[in-house]
């Protein structure tokens, strides 16, 4: 048996040089310090992305992307197909946990100043991945073609159209016309299942390659406390711990999918009035809620234009923070960046709570 195993090993070794990968994995380590737990979020994002790809492919086997049949195909999937309800609920819940994990991963990297030199490009690719995760959520929300999703998409694409200069063109290109129609559904479907996955896989591979190349970042405050001897070997120690986290996430995901099924609602009617209580997914509510509080006009500009420009500036700040926080690279973190980060999180949390309580 041993000889057979070694023969198989030899066969692969001669062709793929696996020993080099094993050597690389045995040398890879994860820094050990009081914030090590935050490193697990990167793996959680990766795991949930895998769940989304897997369940998404299964959903494709029954879904029909036309206004006449989309809603019915999802209803058939949920009601008639064995375990169809489980696949759809898992996909919907995993999407929400995926975005949540992306936010946790990004903010943990932000507060640990992981964006500082030489990891600016890793931060940029991570920021792009968060944008893609939001794009997945936005494009996927419309696909069941129900009333709530239809009007939330009308509002969402309207917000895009409010962006100064190119907003109108982008909004119309997204919708495939002036209004949300069957063309919008076709476009969102294509974006959701082909364009975004392709870009996401490429950016994800680059993100992971950069982490392998540069190693994991340590917070400035912990650099002197952790040593190479104390570091956790990635394989098998950290990998097995991460696997335990994945199992935990899987258990939570299945519990949510079974105990709190995702409602399908009523079929969208493009020529009906919008019902009260239209809300986007929670990860967009901080924007829609804030826009609700702005008056129709602020000085010379329309209220929502001012709001959108404000959000764009916030996004630009997060994108460019490696260039703004120069002190972090020299080991001197500026507390102002921590305060700004805390303010952003507080703003998002308060707006999300208001959206679900006050309405």
């Amino acid at each position, binding site marked *: 048996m041993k000889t057979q195993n070694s023969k198989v090993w030899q066969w692969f070794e001669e062709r793929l040089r696996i020993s080099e990968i094993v050597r690389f994995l045995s040398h890879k380590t994860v820094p050990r310090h009081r914030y090590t737990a935050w490193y697990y979020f990167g793996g959680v994002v990766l795991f949930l992305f895998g769940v989304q790809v897997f369940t998404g492919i299964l959903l494709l086997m029954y879904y029909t992307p036309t206004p006449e049949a989309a809603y019915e195909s999802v209803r058939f999937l949920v009601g008639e197909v064995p375990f169809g309800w489980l696949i759809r609920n898992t996909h919907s819940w995993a999407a929400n946990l995926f975005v949540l994990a992306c936010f946790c991963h990004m903010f943990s990297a932000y507060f640990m100043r992981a964006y500082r030199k030489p990891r600016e490009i890793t931060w940029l690719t991570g920021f792009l991945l968060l944008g893609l995760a939001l794009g997945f959520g936005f494009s996927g929300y419309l696909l069941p073609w129900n009333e709530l999703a239809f009007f939330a998409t009308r509002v969402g694409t309207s917000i895009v159209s409010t962006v100064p200069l190119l907003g109108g063109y982008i909004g119309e*290109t997204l919708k495939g016309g002036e209004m949300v129609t069957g063309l919008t559904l076709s476009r969102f479907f294509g974006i959701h299942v082909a364009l975004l996955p392709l870009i996401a896989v490429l950016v994800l591979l680059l993100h992971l390659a950069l982490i392998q190349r540069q190693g994991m970042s340590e917070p400035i405050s912990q650099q002197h406390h952790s040593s190479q001897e104390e570091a956790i070997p990635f394989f098998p120690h950290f990998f097995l711990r991460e696997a335990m986290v994945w199992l935990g996430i899987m258990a939570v995901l299945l519990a949510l999918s079974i105990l709190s099924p995702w409602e399908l609602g009523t079929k969208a009617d493009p020529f009906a009035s*919008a019902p009260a209580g239209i809300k986007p997914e929670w990860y967009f509510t901080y924007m829609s809620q804030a*826009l609700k509080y702005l008056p129709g006009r602020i000085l010379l500009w329309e209220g929502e234009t001012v709001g959108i420009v404000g959000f764009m500036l916030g996004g630009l700040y997060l994108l460019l923070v490696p260039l703004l926080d120069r002190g972090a690279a020299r080991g001197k973190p500026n507390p102002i960046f921590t305060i700004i980060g805390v303010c952003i999180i507080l703003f998002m949390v308060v707006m999300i709570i208001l959206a679900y309580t006050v309405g």
Partner: protein
Amino acid sequence: MERRLSRRMFSNLLVGGGLLIWLGTILQAIFRYVIPPASGQVGSLSVLAAKTTELPPNSGKIVRYGSSPAIIVRPPGGEVRAFLAICTHLACTVQYRDDLAHIWCACHNGHFDLFGRNVSGPPPRPLEELQVVTRGNEFFISKRA
């Protein structure tokens, strides 16, 4: 030496420029492909919105006007009016509230009076008004000239 370099520069320019033109042509075609063509909705489109029996006083009805929703309203004691039913805030479809006797957007609580003017909430502009023509017992709506 200088002559050889300029020849190389020339060929680089030729190949690089050709590549750029090729790329520009492809991108231009893709760009034009993804931008949707105009819907072709004619300005003089006239649509039967409602019969008089369908629109009692203090009521409103959402109707299809080309690819957009429109609202025709009959106030308790006034003339019939129609508007594009697209809220000027974030494009939700508005509705007539008989308890308030005016037009309301449920998405962000925007209020419009019976002339389509934005009177409260976030909408920044009035609704776009349509022309209503009564022929017999039918109301037709069209864009204003």
